[in-house]
């Protein structure tokens, strides 16, 4: 079920009504669990089975790990959990990719191999809930936490519908405790939750889909050399589209959970105001970057095993982080570029001594713009359909493409440029604060004006026909 759909409006109204009905807390949790399964089944009912299997396997694996007396047994049960979760991911998400590459390898070795047709549908949000359940088993294995005692709480942790299909990826320690006692939003929380839902929908439906997608789709859909203005407009528009699409989803998820009395963590903090890449990853898809840090980078040794290993660990983490997004070499390159940026930044910090003017406003702004520029280079690989298209787009941006065509009309360029300029300026202005703190400074009339504008725009835009980009991951 899409957040930006009429079905969700009715679904959510029923869920809220049941959550405020005079039932016991256990019954309410049961309602939320059933609602979460319905939410997921609304796409493809059979895939609910995957959720159930994932839940059962990690519930038992964690308990067995906790009860085991030997390291060998603990490791065995962890492998069981990882094998099932990564097995699902591997089969549904990476099967075709592996088969394609295997075929290419065979053919390049002179062995004629024709793979069978691969007609497997990717279950929505599988990467998100797989990482979430794996975190539970890993926490128990790494002795960071003991298993929860309530199966219902755990099942709800895996399936909790606000963040089930596109995050934020929540840790067991962040969400499971919230199910222990009855949660009901205060009136202020409920209203703020609704306000967040409107904000998130506005980001997705109005800004991402209506104002930015036409320019991004027009430029990346050309599949040929295009003029530098078109290329830059398309890439910048995509930088805004992907942000508003994904941040919009997270904001709706947070607002939805808040209306029910639950707290979900932030997933974005004005990332296009980042100064450097370690800062960027503290602001972009925070729940994934912290997951990768805690369950991959640190277990690999982090920065504790010498300089070379630190750089290797960084690269491994970012390459796998890229591959998490999708089964394509483009995503691997995207992750690899971020790994290189992080490594280069680390190297520069180690070799260049801190200067007083580093903290000047102008220098910081220049570094933020440089970071944004370099992030946009990575978005080319993220958005392009293949490496050839990505290279053509980069050549177009550099003005090096032969016979570049103009493909974007002013009707697409002007709205995209205005929204992107507004987005970057807003991120810079708010880089050290939060939207909550900002709104507290606003007079009442301004809050009313802004939310009326967003709600009205949402209504006249009449929803959008497209799913959230991150659903495909």
């Amino acid at each position, binding site marked *: *079920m*899409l957040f930006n*759909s*009429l*079905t969700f409006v*009715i679904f959510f109204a029923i869920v809220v009504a049941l959550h405020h009905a005079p039932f016991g807390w256990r019954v309410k949790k049961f309602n939320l669990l059933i609602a979460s399964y319905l939410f997921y089944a609304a*796409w*493809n*009912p059979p895939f609910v089975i995957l959720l159930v299997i994932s839940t059962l396997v990690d519930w038992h694996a964690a308990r067995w790990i906790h009860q085991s007396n030997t390291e060998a047994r603990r490791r065995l049960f962890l492998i069981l959990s990882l094998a099932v979760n990564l097995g699902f991911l591997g089969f549904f998400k990476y099967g075709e990719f592996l088969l394609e590459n295997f075929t290419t390898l065979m053919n390049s070795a002179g062995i004629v191999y024709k793979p069978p047709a691969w007609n497997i549908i990717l279950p929505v949000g599988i990467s998100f809930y797989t990482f979430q359940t794996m975190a539970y088993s890993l*926490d128990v294995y*790494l*002795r*960071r*936490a003991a298993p929860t005692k309530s199966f219902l709480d755990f099942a709800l942790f895996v399936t909790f519908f606000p963040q089930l299909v596109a995050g934020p990826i929540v840790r*067991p*320690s962040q*969400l*499971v*405790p*919230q199910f*222990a*006692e009855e949660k009901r939003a*205060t*009136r*202020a*929380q409920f*209203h*703020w939750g*609704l*306000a967040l839902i409107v904000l998130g929908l506005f980001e997705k439906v109005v800004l991402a*889909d*209506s104002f930015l997608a036409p320019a991004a789709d027009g430029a990346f859909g050309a599949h040929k050399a295009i003029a530098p203005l078109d290329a830059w407009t398309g890439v910048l528009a995509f930088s805004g589209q992907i942000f508003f699409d994904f941040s919009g989803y997270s904001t709706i998820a947070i607002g939805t959970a*808040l209306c029910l*009395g639950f*707290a*979900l963590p932030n997933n974005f903090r004005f990332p296009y105001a980042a100064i450097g890449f370690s800062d960027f990853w503290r602001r972009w898809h*925070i729940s994934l970057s912290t997951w990768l840090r*805690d369950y991959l980078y*640190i277990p690999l040794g982090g920065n504790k095993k010498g300089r070379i290993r630190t750089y290797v660990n960084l690269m491994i983490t970012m390459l796998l982080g890229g591959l998490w997004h999708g089964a394509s070499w483009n995503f691997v390159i995207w992750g690899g570029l971020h790994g290189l940026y992080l490594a280069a930044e680390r190297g520069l910090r180690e070799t260049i001594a801190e200067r007083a003017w580093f903290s000047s406003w102008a220098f910081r702004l220049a570094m933020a713009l440089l970071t944004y520029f370099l992030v946009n280079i990575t978005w080319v690989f993220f958005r392009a359909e293949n490496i050839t298209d990505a290279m053509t787009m980069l050549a177009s941006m550099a003005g090096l493409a032969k016979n570049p065509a*103009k493909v974007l*009309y*002013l*009707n697409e360029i*002007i709205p995209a440029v205005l929204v992107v300029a507004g987005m970057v300026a807003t991120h810079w202005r708010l880089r050290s604060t*939060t939207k*909550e*703190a900002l*709104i*507290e400074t*606003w007079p009442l009339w301004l*809050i*009313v004006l802004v*939310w*009326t504008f967003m*709600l*009205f*725009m949402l209504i*006249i*835009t*009449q929803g959008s026909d497209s799913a959230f980009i991150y659903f495909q991951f």
Partner: protein
Amino acid sequence: MPSSISSSDNAYPAPKTAFFDPEHVARPVPAAAWRVVMLAVIVATALLTAGWEIYWRGKEFRAGDFKNTPALWAEQRRKATGDATVLIGSSRTLFDVDLDIFEAIAGVRPVQLALEGTSPRVFLKDLADDERFHGTLIVGVTTILFFTSEGGLRESVIEYARNETPSQRADHQLSLPLERVFAFLDEQTRPKRQMTLAPLPLRDGMKPRFDPRKLQILDADRNAEMWSRVVNDKAYRKEAQDQWLLVFRLSAPPPGPNGEPPPPMPDEAINAVISEVKANVDKIRARGGEVIFIQPPVAGPFLEVEQGGFPRARFWDRLLTMTDSAGVSFHDHAEMQAYDLPEWSHLSPADSKRYSRALTPLVYAEMEKKKAERAAR
């Protein structure tokens, strides 16, 4: 921050090692009179929306004109089963056949599956491959689209109908009652569409974009007719006509190296298209169904292009002969002449009714005649 909820005070066992410190989950609520805000926002939005509705009604948009969505098509596609009478074709078949009149004359309401800018060949194949369908299929032929394109603008609806999710179907059902009430719920009124229509100058060297205007209004069962504004608003009609002239310019095949006219479509290509059509027609007939072709009226530049580039003997007549099918072309019937086609391609609402009154009995008469012919062989 007056209030917040947090997961820090929890029953979940504390981490047993020190290094792991998951992000503290706090969800502060900004201090504001939120109840007042909500009320004010709802009232102001309701007023603005009412104004928006009045504005678009003033532009001849009306409630009960349904969006021509894949979900609306899929709903009708599910009815195209058994011995149903089904219409497939392009926009002329969609606009020009009035389902109420057809039903009044034939006693059966056809399922309308025609779609703008799309060749009916994809729908013919879809129905031929569907073993459950053994009814009457009326195929509208817009010669250019039929012979030059296998699919077209909206062919993806078939995939959509096959893979429609429960939530997409529910969304459609929830949208219908709203579309019955609000006129502004229309693809044309969306800000995204309005931005595309804004008359901004063209960048140097760019060709104008072919962007057909809204031409039809649609009932919930896809019974369509031309939008009144095309008939009544001269400037709007001119915009619609200009778009057709533009597409003729943009899609005209290039002349030869010495300026000679482009070569006509070769016989082999025409025969290949008809052979594919025949295979699908035969599949339906083998199950007891019947297929008939119709050619709705055209005028102006469309008539010139179709007569010049797609002569009847090479296309329409050959189609009927090779598929052994009946056909009703507007060229052949005196009662189908002198219609009003405001933008040359589609009939005005009044004349679509006249056309449907003439067409319906002819469809059945020609089908019976052809069946008798086949039986006599």
